[in-house]
């Protein structure tokens, strides 16, 4: 490994992975064009969760601010576009932009106070915010309360459900969803790569490794944390709109529950936090596994899928605490020097009580 010069190696690693994954995606996609609905659904879910995890990664991975409330942004996106569509018959594409803007504003409003908190206090605060949003929406009659909202079908001239790019709805040829999913995943990935390679990315990593040191060196810590949360929130909200259009039904439980926030973080963590390839790998492994175990073992109240899923999470946390992406780097030495995430691990080894340098 390249040892003490991590940045060049890092770029190579992430680009190599992006290339590999693009190839793998193409290999799956081409046969899929002739494949079934179940495979398409699985692929859309993988794309959705990898994008959600990538957006989470910008704040949670690069900047080290662990959010367990990202579902709130997701819900804002889903509800904004859906309400604009139902109330004013506006295209979800406009709703997607409006949702992203709203989520960004919301992110700034909560970010200002909450970013003063360190480590676990921050994580619990994001849980609290997410739960407050869930309770508010579940009791807000205007947006359908706990019952939720259904998005009306686009209908063709024969009054049957139809497809429309303008209204982001594909009832006949569901490949439209796949194309939008790929486009969104590409957008999120490119933004993550740009951030990682830019000045902002270096500042975020400095904040993650040692907030006090970063501040001492003149990094405007609050400003860069806010930039990270705004980008993360806006992208998450856009994916929320896509999800609403994909399911054509939303309620507070499916769009804002805590389990969703946790799953988003989990995908990134299993893949490898703070790397661009991590969320892609995490989603490509975790989502098919979860769907397959559910269809093979689940059903009729059987929860063996949960058991397997939980067991797998424990095994990976214990034996591969830096995520699956670490598997691609050989040997213990490389693992502890190649990436900024691993510096955190090295710090934790030197001073266990720091518990992973969460920037206090």
């Amino acid at each position, binding site marked *: 490994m390249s040892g003490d010069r991590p940045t060049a190696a890092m770029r190579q690693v992430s680009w190599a992975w992006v290339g590999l994954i693009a190839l793998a995606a193409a290999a799956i996609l081409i046969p899929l064009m002739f494949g079934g609905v179940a495979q398409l659904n699985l692929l859309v879910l993988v794309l959705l969760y990898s994008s959600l995890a990538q957006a989470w990664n910008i704040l949670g991975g690069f900047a080290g601010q662990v959010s367990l409330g990202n579902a709130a942004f997701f819900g804002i996106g889903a509800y904004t576009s859906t309400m604009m569509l139902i109330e004013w018959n506006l295209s979800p594409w406009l709703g997607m932009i409006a949702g992203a803007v709203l989520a960004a504003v919301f992110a700034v409003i909560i970010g200002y106070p*909450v970013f003063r908190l360190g480590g676990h206090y921050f994580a619990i605060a994001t849980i609290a915010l997410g*739960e407050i949003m869930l309770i508010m929406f579940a009791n807000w009659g205007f947006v359908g309360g706990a019952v939720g909202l259904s998005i009306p079908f686009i209908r063709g001239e024969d009054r049957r459900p139809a497809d429309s790019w303008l209204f982001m709805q594909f009832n006949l040829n569901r490949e439209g969803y796949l194309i939008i999913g790929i486009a969104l995943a590409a957008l999120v990935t490119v933004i993550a790569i740009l951030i990682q390679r830019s000045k902002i990315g270096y500042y975020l990593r400095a904040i993650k490794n040692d907030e006090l040191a970063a501040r001492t060196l003149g990094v405007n810590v609050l400003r860069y944390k806010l930039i990270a949360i705004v980008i993360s929130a806006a992208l998450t909200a856009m994916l929320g709109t896509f999800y609403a259009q994909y399911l054509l039904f939303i309620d507070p439980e499916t769009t804002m529950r805590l389990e969703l926030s946790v799953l988003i973080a989990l995908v990134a963590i299993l893949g490898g*936090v703070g790397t661009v390839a991590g969320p892609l790998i995490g989603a490509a492994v975790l989502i098919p596994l979860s769907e397959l175990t559910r269809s093979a073992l689940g059903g009729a109240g059987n929860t063996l899928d*949960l058991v397997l899923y*939980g067991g797998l999470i424990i095994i990976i946390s214990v034996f591969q605490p830096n995520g699956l992406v670490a598997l691609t780097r050989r040997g213990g030495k490389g693992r502890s020097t190649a990436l900024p995430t691993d510096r955190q691990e090295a710090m*934790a080894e030197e001073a266990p009580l720091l518990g992973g340098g969460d920037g206090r």
Partner: protein
Amino acid sequence: MDVLLQAIASGLLIGMVYALISVGLTLIFGLMEIVNFAHGEFLMLAMYAAFWGSLLFGLDPMVSLPATVLALAALGVLTYYGIIARILKAPMLAQIFATFGLGLLLRGLAQFFWTANFRTVPDSFLAGLFGGTVRVGAVSLGVPQIAAALLAGLAFAGLYLFIRHTRTGLALQAVAEDRGTAALMGINSDRMFALGWGLGAGCVGIAGAVLASFYYIYPSVGVLFALIAYIVVALGGFGSVPGALVAGLLVGLVEVVSPTLFGFSPAYKYAVVFGLYLVVVLIRPRGLFGQF
């Protein structure tokens, strides 16, 4: 006025239970800075232990309480040696998700073996004691709730005396303070950590046994209790035992009193509790009594 008094009394009683559930979490965090995200599932298992004791052996949850506490303590120690000891040096995120995975696993197993049905312990001793309710002036309180609060108080007192006034308790404090120096004094931190997990899970065992006397028992019963426990622990300050007590009472009080006092729907009560946490940590970023 009577309504308010009633709400305050009920709030304090449930607050004691919250405090008891939370103290295990905060104890473990104080020792090794790990949040146990399977805490709610530990509570769920304790409640099921009481339930099965009653159904299979005809033992009242109060009679089987010692066994439940021991079983939970064993589970805590097992969790420490099986999982936690291996991830002490792992990044914080891996630690969070290891215990989260354990929670999923336990919840899945519970639902697989025991179904998702809601269960109750029929004719529990506490529910029948003194006809089930006690009236003090205009305030009427459930006997099981009073007993739960009293037991929680006893457990707190016991825990406090143990930590403050026994050699082992002092060793626990030493390890929490500084692992390295404690090791130089000949304290085996590994055993202290295991003890911490045993104690923490044991406290949940008490809470579970009491709750089983008057609460529904189902595989995801721990989820809401755990969520409240995280808020309580963070509100009181991670690692602070007195903090857990004060914050538990405060959360119970706010949860029950605020809808009565301000006249909004109880549906919003948890939103107020979470809001309270945000307000407190914005003023005191390390909770009420936190050092971490």
